């Protein structure tokens, strides 16, 4: 069945190529990833070094200009350099959190749907419980209580802790419908081991859906991370992080508006780019749009009415 999976991904790509906006988004992300990865060897100032000697006596931040292209912060640090290095944190947490959520979500969703009965019941009730929390508030509380604000892996894990539920529901719905498909019925009735059926027959068919929702998940994770940092419990200084930079800059809004505007724009553009990509992928996945998506995405409602054409995680709902 590998060829089947590879084939569907290839098909996805061929259709995706025609989505112009999505390609622009992809270009932006590729550029951002390259900048982030090669930041240490690029000719940039140390993002954490304060050029105090350049600051005036009253400590006023330096405006964008020839010394600092995008200006400096109140510590005399180079904003441009900090924005580039900030991409490392955002992208890292975005990918890692989303990766964790996907792994847990796919496992839970598949196991629940495939084994059904009480396994399904318990897993889905647990999913319901996790979805019942006011996510943002709970994440903030959790990180604060753990007192691991500085650890990016903990932040990623907490984001994943709530996002996997959305993935699990999507995957469960998808697997439930796959179960009814004849060739799997056939494999089951001919006595295939569950593991064999899961890995050879079911998982490959999930790949396109995982790609689409994985992309949305990255956007969601990045915006959640920026919120956590803005609230003040994300990464620790002097690490440059976009949400934290907006938060630090807000009291300088009048004095040095660049401190707020640029990092906010970076978050906006990055999330926008991932949304464009996922939108393009979704169109590519089903040129007639909607039908597949409508079938597999349950809303929040534990009753499971398949009503929503795109998943909207609780985080988005809360922070909209």
């Amino acid at each position, binding site marked *: 069945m590998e060829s089947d999976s590879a084939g569907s991904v290839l098909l996805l790509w061929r259709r995706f190529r025609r989505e112009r906006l999505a390609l622009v988004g992809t270009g932006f992300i590729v550029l951002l990833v390259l900048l982030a990865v090669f930041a240490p060897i690029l000719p940039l100032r140390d993002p954490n070094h304060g050029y105090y000697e350049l600051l005036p006596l009253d400590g006023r931040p330096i405006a964008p200009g020839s010394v600092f292209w995008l200006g400096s912060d109140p510590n005399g640090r180079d904003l441009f350099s900090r924005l580039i290095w900030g991409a490392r944190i955002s992208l890292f947490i975005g990918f890692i959190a989303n990766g964790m959520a996907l792994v847990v979500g796919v496992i839970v969703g598949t196991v629940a749907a495939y084994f059904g009965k009480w396994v399904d019941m318990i897993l889905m009730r*647990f999913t319901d419980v996790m979805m019942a929390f006011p996510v*943002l508030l709970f994440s903030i509380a959790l990180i604060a209580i753990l007192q691991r604000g500085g650890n990016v892996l903990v932040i990623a894990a907490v984001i994943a802790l709530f996002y996997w539920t959305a993935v699990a529901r999507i995957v469960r719905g998808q697997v439930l419908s796959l179960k009814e498909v004849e060739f799997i019925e056939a494999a089951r009735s001919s006595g295939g081991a569950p593991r064999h059926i899961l890995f050879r027959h079911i998982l490959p068919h999930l790949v396109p859906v995982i790609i689409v929702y994985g992309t949305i998940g990255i956007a969601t994770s990045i915006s959640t991370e920026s919120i956590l940092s803005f609230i003040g419990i994300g990464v620790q200084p002097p690490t440059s992080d976009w949400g934290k930079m907006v938060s630090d800059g807000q009291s300088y809004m009048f004095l040095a508006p660049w401190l707020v505007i640029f990092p906010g724009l970076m978050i906006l553009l990055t999330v926008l780019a991932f*949304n464009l990509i996922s939108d393009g992928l979704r169109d590519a996945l089903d040129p007639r749009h909607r039908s597949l998506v409508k079938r597999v995405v349950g809303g929040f409602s534990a009753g499971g009415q398949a009503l929503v054409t795109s998943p909207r995680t609780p985080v988005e709902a809360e922070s909209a």
Partner: protein
Amino acid sequence: MTRYIIRRLGWMVVVLFGVAVVTFIIAFLVPGDPARLYAGSNASPASVAIIHHQLGLDRPVYVQFVDYLWRVLHLDFGYSYRYSAPVLPAILQRFPATAELAVAGVFVEVIVGLPIGILAATRPGSIWDRITMVFTFVTLAAPPFWLGLIFLYVFGALIPIFPLGGYGNGAPQYLFLPALTLGLGGAGYYARLLRAVLLDILPKDYIRTANAKGVTPGTVMFRHALPNALTVLVTQLGMDLGYFLAGVVVIETVFAWPGIGKQAVDAIFNLDIPLVMGTVLFGALLIVGANVAVDIAYTFIDPRVRY
């Protein structure tokens, strides 16, 4: 129908029990001794020990859990260190502000989102469709705290037509910017959702029939297509309302809106864990309640009834 409602209510109880278990576990991960936080700085070990006992922290965990459940059932959500007052009244005192903002936020989602969605759906591929597309993408992607700050900066300070945050005892001009910031992201989402659903409905037979009969396009939209599309939106809006009521953390923080979300964030920084976990529990109750309410409402507005 009745059986369905009972089943949903039963589900609600199960989920809320799970929520209580998780909340209790988290409260136990608190670093240090809650009694010490409660006693305040400079308190002697002796008085910390007294409080430790008063809070019942020296009992076995399962006893504490049963006690916790019992108290939650009696609407006793604990005692806030910061305010030296019971948690639930503290939450209820702030709740009207959050409720006001939540309802206004959902209102903005609808009032901004629906016209844009209709505009885009009736002229797919047009320049209007593209403009609304850009609008929805940008509002969905803009970080809400940043958008709020920009609004405050532009409409509160540069062109001072709205107050600079705060509650103003509920005066409408104070509500405008926070509600706009809160609803804008959702508005973009509903515009896209409505566009997609309408594009699905408009080609359907009964709409074609209506068109063929010479019914004006406006009537077709508002009498036939829109009501059917709305049933899809209503459930999602109900869910949004639940989440908003559970605490609009970011918007309340940016606009100094005295709701339960801001209170909880302040509580976190004061290590007032009972108040935080009380708010989480309270929020979960609202979310689950909204969920069940929407499910039940949905059985009444089943679209097939109107076909």
